[in-house]
């Protein structure tokens, strides 16, 4: 276990250097997925289902093929045959190109490639599909009703991986149990419960999915795309197309935002199949409508929470039931929601049940701490309700019940060292919380949120240049400035200037396996791998110095870029000087780092929101907002603040105006950036940030991933502020103006 260097003596970590890829991004030279060009490139479009649930009786694309300029058309028949009994691969391939049934509006049915995008689009209108319409289940309540149409006819509810005999639209039931909740509720003085529902929302990245695929005559496939994980894409392409990994190379280009939504692949296999038929590279860029209807939003659903507490504020029992929309195929984040729903609070009696429910909507994907915001929208309001009833300050009440190191999570393992209490203290002492909020129709709400963060595999290599600079080769695609935060860790370990580290993000054939850019792991795991690669280089340089000086390896000391030897005070050489002599003294030096961290510290975050309601129109204005988060150690503070501000903005949008609005035919009406209302610059105040630093001992520099936890508390904090401003508890999202007015008119 590397012990953490004394943070006060860091040279590079904690500073705010310019990111290495910045110049290209502010001059328009950076190449994103859609910017990729290649000789012989043709363009693809995808034909998608207009129905939420239907059997495909026939597909006819003869007319499309005859259109001048159209080169190839593919359907599910062009995918490998699914081996009998392997349900999982059937689901994966089914979401790429529908087979036998379409399960949501926007479900891909066929791909067309043509000499230009307009011709490909016209060809879509010449494809004829014969459907047999089926009734659709559009939310968890409808889908869980036993009378509802089965979406996957022969699937049975699973419990802990075991198939039960229950045949309904619930794919999996999760359960965590600790102590005895009934006993806990019996000796509670006060019990508060509530069912809180959220609606499907989208990550909202501004760059639509874009990918180009070239399937060569020798059977090798190269894909250039915007992605959150080039290696996971390679694995999934191999899985779906049934070709060996050795034949596939994924070249990640710059990515225009993802937030979890660009972890899965969608058009890459279709572009690959079209390229195979056409013998040319095929580029497919999604329209904004396709991004909304055909990628992976985060689920709606409900979270019911019941908490028992003694009059002195001690929690005695906590129970929850969560049911989230999986979308058309299993795999909603209800498992993660079940883990986070009570994460912040210590209690020996807990029972949590989670249901992963299939509905006729796009298959959900990760969206920044997936599942945790949905759960917190319930828990943090029930906690707020209790603190109001007991007359205890909401931060004090949370402090009294906050978990600490060694307390058990509901699924069993003990919490490692964490910064929840420090976050709560910072919230209490924050300028905003200290400031009085007066006047009618105004309210202040607070909430806390948790995300457990993940480690997963990362690999880096570092080569030393003759001028003393080093090349850092890594595989983590850079969404939010992680090139800088990873290079800073390598520079700190090598004790050279940050500017001497040239990071480059390379394709899947040039660096060791590196998992997804997600789960708040990039600065944590890939930074750790860069640190190990830097240590490897340092040790080799020390050995080389000992050989040049003819002294023992142990006598050589390296500090602040200088090699010296205890054996002879005269001996002294800079990193730069030694680097210039490598060729002549045995050859250039390259170091490697590979890590799959077992121990990963989670991150707690808090939000404070002051808002004002216009009682006539129901419109709310955020007056002041503060985000607080435990970063362990902020490597590049500007980008940590950026994550906190970005997560808060998404949380505010989620709370106030964002929703998938479906009509009664199961069709999304607002699949445009006009009517899917994400906050504009005019809708948000300045977002204050307070970084708390409780180092995670399982990382050489104490880093905790900060990418996700910050999106969890904004929605409940806003709901708690709404309660103070209107006197009403909001059980549904979004809390948009019509919802506020109908709440205000409820009893007056």
């Amino acid at each position: 276990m590397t012990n953490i260097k004394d943070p006060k003596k860091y040279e590079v970590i904690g500073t705010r250097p310019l990111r290495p890829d910045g110049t290209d991004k502010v001059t328009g030279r950076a190449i994103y997925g859609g910017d990729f060009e290649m000789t012989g490139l043709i363009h693809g479009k995808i034909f998608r289902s207009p129905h939420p649930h239907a059997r495909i009786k026939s597909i006819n694309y003869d007319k499309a093929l005859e259109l001048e300029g159209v080169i190839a058309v593919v359907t599910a028949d062009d995918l490998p045959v699914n081996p009998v009994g392997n349900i999982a691969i059937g689901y994966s391939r089914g979401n790429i190109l529908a087979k036998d049934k379409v399960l949501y509006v926007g479900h891909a049915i066929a791909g067309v490639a043509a000499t230009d995008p307009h011709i490909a689009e016209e060809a879509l209108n010449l494809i004829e599909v014969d459907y047999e319409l089926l009734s659709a289940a559009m939310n968890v309540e409808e889908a869980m009703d036993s009378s509802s149409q089965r979406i996957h006819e022969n699937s049975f509810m699973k419990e802990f991986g075991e198939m039960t005999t229950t045949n309904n639209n619930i794919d999996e039931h999760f359960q965590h149990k600790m102590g005895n909740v009934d006993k806990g509720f019996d000796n509670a003085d006060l019990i508060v419960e509530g069912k809180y529902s959220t609606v499907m929302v989208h990550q909202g990245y501004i760059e639509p999915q874009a990918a180009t695929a070239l399937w060569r005559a020798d059977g090798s496939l190269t894909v250039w795309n915007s992605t959150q994980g080039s290696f996971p894409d390679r694995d999934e392409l191999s899985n779906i197309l049934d070709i060996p990994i050795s034949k596939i190379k994924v070249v990640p280009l710059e990515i225009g935002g993802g937030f979890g939504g660009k972890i899965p692949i969608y058009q890459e296999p279709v572009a690959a199949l079209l390229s195979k038929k056409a013998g040319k590279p095929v580029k497919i860029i999604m329209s904004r409508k396709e991004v909304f209807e055909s990628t992976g939003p985060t689920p709606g659903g409900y979270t019911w929470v019941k908490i028992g507490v003694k009059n002195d504020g001690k929690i005695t029992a906590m129970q929850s039931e969560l049911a989230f929309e999986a979308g058309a195929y299993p795999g909603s984040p209800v498992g993660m929601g079940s883990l986070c729903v009570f994460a912040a609070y210590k209690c020996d009696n807990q029972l949590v049940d989670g249901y992963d429910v299939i509905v006729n909507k796009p298959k959900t994907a990760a969206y920044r701490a997936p599942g945790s915001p949905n759960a917190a929208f319930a828990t943090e309001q029930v906690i707020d309700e209790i603190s109001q009833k007991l007359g205890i300050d909401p931060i004090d009440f949370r402090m009294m019940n906050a978990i600490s190191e060694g307390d058990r999570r509901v699924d069993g393992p003990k919490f490692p060292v964490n910064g929840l209490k420090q976050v709560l203290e910072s919230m209490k002492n924050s300028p905003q919380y200290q400031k009085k909020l007066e006047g009618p129709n105004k309210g202040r709400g607070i909430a806390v949120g948790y995300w457990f963060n993940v480690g997963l595999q990362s690999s880096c290599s570092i080569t030393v240049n003759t001028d003393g600079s080093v090349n850092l080769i890594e595989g983590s695609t850079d969404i939010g400035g992680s090139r800088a935060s990873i290079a800073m860790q390598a520079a700190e370990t090598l004790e050279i200037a940050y500017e001497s580290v040239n990071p480059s993000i390379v394709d899947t054939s040039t660096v060791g396996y590196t998992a997804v850019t997600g789960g708040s792991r990039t600065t944590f795991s890939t930074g750790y791998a860069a640190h190990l690669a830097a240590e490897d280089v340092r040790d080799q340089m020390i050995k080389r110095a000992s050989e040049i000086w003819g002294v023992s390896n142990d006598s050589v000391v390296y500090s602040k870029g200088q090699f010296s030897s205890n054996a002879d005070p005269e001996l002294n050489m800079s990193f730069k000087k030694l680097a210039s002599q490598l060729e002549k003294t045995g050859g250039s030096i390259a170091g490697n780092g590979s890590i799959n961290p077992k121990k990963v510290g989670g991150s707690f975050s808090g939000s404070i929101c002051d808002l004002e309601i216009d009682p006539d129109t129901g419109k709310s204005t955020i007056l002041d907002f503060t985000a607080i988060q435990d970063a362990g150690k902020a490597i590049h503070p500007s980008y940590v603040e950026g994550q906190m501000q970005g997560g808060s903005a998404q949380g505010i949008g989620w709370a106030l105006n964002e929703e998938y609005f479906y009509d009664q035919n199961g069709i999304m009406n607002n699949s445009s950036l006009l009517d899917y209302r994400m906050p504009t610059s005019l809708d948000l105040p300045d977002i204050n940030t307070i970084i708390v630093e409780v180092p995670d001992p399982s990382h050489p520099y104490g880093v905790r991933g900060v990418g996700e936890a910050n999106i969890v508390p904004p929605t409940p904090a806003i709901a708690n502020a709404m309660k103070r401003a209107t006197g009403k508890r909001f059980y549904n999202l979004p809390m948009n103006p019509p919802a506020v007015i109908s709440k205000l008119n409820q009893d007056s």
Partner: protein
Amino acid sequence: MAKVFIPALLHTFTRNVSQIDVEGNNVRTVINNLDMEFPGIKSKLVEGHQIKPSISVAVDGNITPMGLLEEVGEQSEVHFLPAISGG
């Protein structure tokens, strides 16, 4: 003696025992010994000679990619959790 925690959904299988001390220096031997106490539980946790893909194993609170090979210390705690992917 490692302290093994039984997942809630398997409690009906273990006569409602939620926690039991089991001999074993790695996850494989712990599960084999557990199966002696509660015959058939192994088939719930292991497939072929690997932990089931839908399950992950945590030793002392850390989810391990090593599965059955992960070492288990004298005072270690072992949890079987539903596998969840990154955020």
